[in-house]
């Protein structure tokens, strides 16, 4: 390009670049920006794309080239930024995307739940035969309480109010579930450990309480919140195993791309199950430690909430009315 042509190009275009910069600077209040200004941004940005390519050729590694690239990166970000339609996105997530993810994850979930059950049986067998092994996963205070015929959950509400109890349980459950998921980044081994340990502990604690005929009371405490809580931990575990699987056998994608895809899919599921954990925390804070709730009502709450979780996850709750109408 001759010096004259370069000069002419710079003279013709520099005003447009300044104009685009000004338009982008006032772009903060997007809703009130006139439509013609928005269209102008799009047009100027497209023209700038050509200018960037030209500048890279005729003025490589120059300040002009860098300034135009930075301006283009900014306009590209503004133009292609996703609209913030929270409720629309959430509806799409819960009605369409999560059921798809759940269908894809079904077999992994069955494997994870089986692992949880097997380790729970192993924990039961270990502590049933060697009760002193309970010290591996229970504190001395808990052990002393059970040996004196009491559960650590007795009089829980006298020590901590339901609101605080719910919140701490909720936080704990969300953290455990997230850990079960993210530790899948270690080729799935971290997830297997979390699922295995939780199953082992549950089985072990039940076996220990059974030695003192307290297993019925423990079951009575757990049933209202436990169905959803344990299901969610297994779902988070299944998602974590998927992360490990993506790293071990990425298929057609690169390892990083397969990992990102698995995280993106499983992440959708975790948003929904975390909401259910909030409900489970409330049940564990208000219902489970409250003796005025009879066993039957606890079973109804636990199973009902569990069925609600599964129908939301597989999407049948959204199609229930429609399929009935179409018949």
């Amino acid at each position, binding site marked *: 390009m001759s010096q004259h042509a370069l000069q002419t190009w710079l003279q013709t275009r520099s005003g447009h*670049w300044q104009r685009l910069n000004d338009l982008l600077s006032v772009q903060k209040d997007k809703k009130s920006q006139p439509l013609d200004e928005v269209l102008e941004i799009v047009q100027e940005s497209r023209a700038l794309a050509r200018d960037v390519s030209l500048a890279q050729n005729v*003025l490589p590694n120059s300040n002009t080239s860098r300034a135009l690239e930075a301006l283009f990166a900014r306009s590209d970000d503004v133009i292609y930024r996703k609209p913030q339609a929270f409720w629309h*996105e959430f509806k799409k997530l819960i009605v369409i995307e999560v059921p798809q993810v759940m269908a894809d994850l079904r077999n992994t979930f069955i494997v994870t739940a089986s692992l949880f059950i097997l380790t729970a049986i192993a924990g039961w067998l270990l502590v049933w035969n060697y009760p002193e092994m309970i010290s591996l996963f229970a504190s001395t205070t808990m052990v002393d309480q059970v040996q004196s015929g009491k559960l650590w959950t007795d009089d829980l509400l006298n020590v901590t109010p339901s609101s605080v109890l719910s919140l701490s349980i909720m936080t704990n459950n969300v953290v455990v579930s997230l850990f079960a998921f993210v530790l899948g980044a270690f080729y799935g081994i971290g997830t297997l450990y979390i699922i295995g340990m939780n199953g082992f502990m549950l089985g072990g604690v039940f076996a220990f309480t059974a030695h003192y005929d307290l297993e019925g009371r423990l079951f009575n405490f757990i049933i209202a919140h436990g169905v959803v809580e344990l299901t969610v931990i297994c779902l988070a575990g299944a998602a974590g195993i998927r992360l490990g699987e993506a790293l071990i056998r990425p298929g057609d994608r690169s390892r990083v791309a397969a990992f990102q895809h698995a995280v993106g899919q499983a992440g959708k599921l975790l948003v929904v199950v975390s909401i259910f954990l909030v409900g489970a925390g409330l049940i564990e804070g208000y219902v489970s430690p409250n003796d005025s709730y009879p066993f039957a009502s606890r079973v109804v709450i636990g199973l009902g909430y569990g069925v609600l979780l599964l129908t939301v996850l597989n999407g049948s709750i959204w199609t229930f009315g429609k399929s009935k109408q179409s018949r």
Partner: protein
Amino acid sequence: MDDQITIQSADAAEFSLAIAGAGSRSYAFLLDWHIRFVVAAAWILLVYLVLKFANGTELDLFTDSAWSSVTWIPALLVYFLYHPVLEVLMHGRTPGKRMAGVRIVDLNGRTPGTGALILRNVFRLVDSLPSLYMVGFTVCLFSKNSVRIGDMAAGTILIKEQRATEKDLQQVSMLANNTEYAPEHLELINSLLLRWQDIDSSKRLALAEKIFEKMRVALPPQTAAHQYGKSVYEKLMAIQQGELS
């Protein structure tokens, strides 16, 4: 020179972004950590003082369950939700990142979606293991694009914020309107003037002399070292602004 990532836009233009390394990342994190810690601690102190002086009650904020929830829950929410909430609201930035001049973008160089920003924060659980972000820091040192596991998972990168500033565009305008000299020569002068204060005085003078020679412009008269440096700088400025013909 920073590591760069080249991005091909939907409009077929290529642009480069400077990747923020472990140093910039750690600096931004430390700034953010101090901010969230101070805000959370300030809230606890405020509740304590309000209860003590307004109500005249002295409460133990650690054991009084009702008040401890008023005190600790908001403080913990500030501490733990600081990153995800602010990154979403500030389009991939936080106050600390802004101060450090870095920003999160996706692999297309654009502001990541809410889901990606939340996911990169969920993976802090792994990156922070076993303590002091050792896993995240180590991965960042050795990974392509200097990312931690959370960024790999969410498909995000931390870049150095590059904005076409008013000054940059004014320089381009000057370049356009200065018909006396070739734009590539003026570019050299722009680059030198931008770095003038950062370069050793003898080296910058040598560079300026080379540019004058290339442009076939006469050197300022040789005077005392300080005066000569000033004359060279003024001549460069005059050429840049089209005042010297």
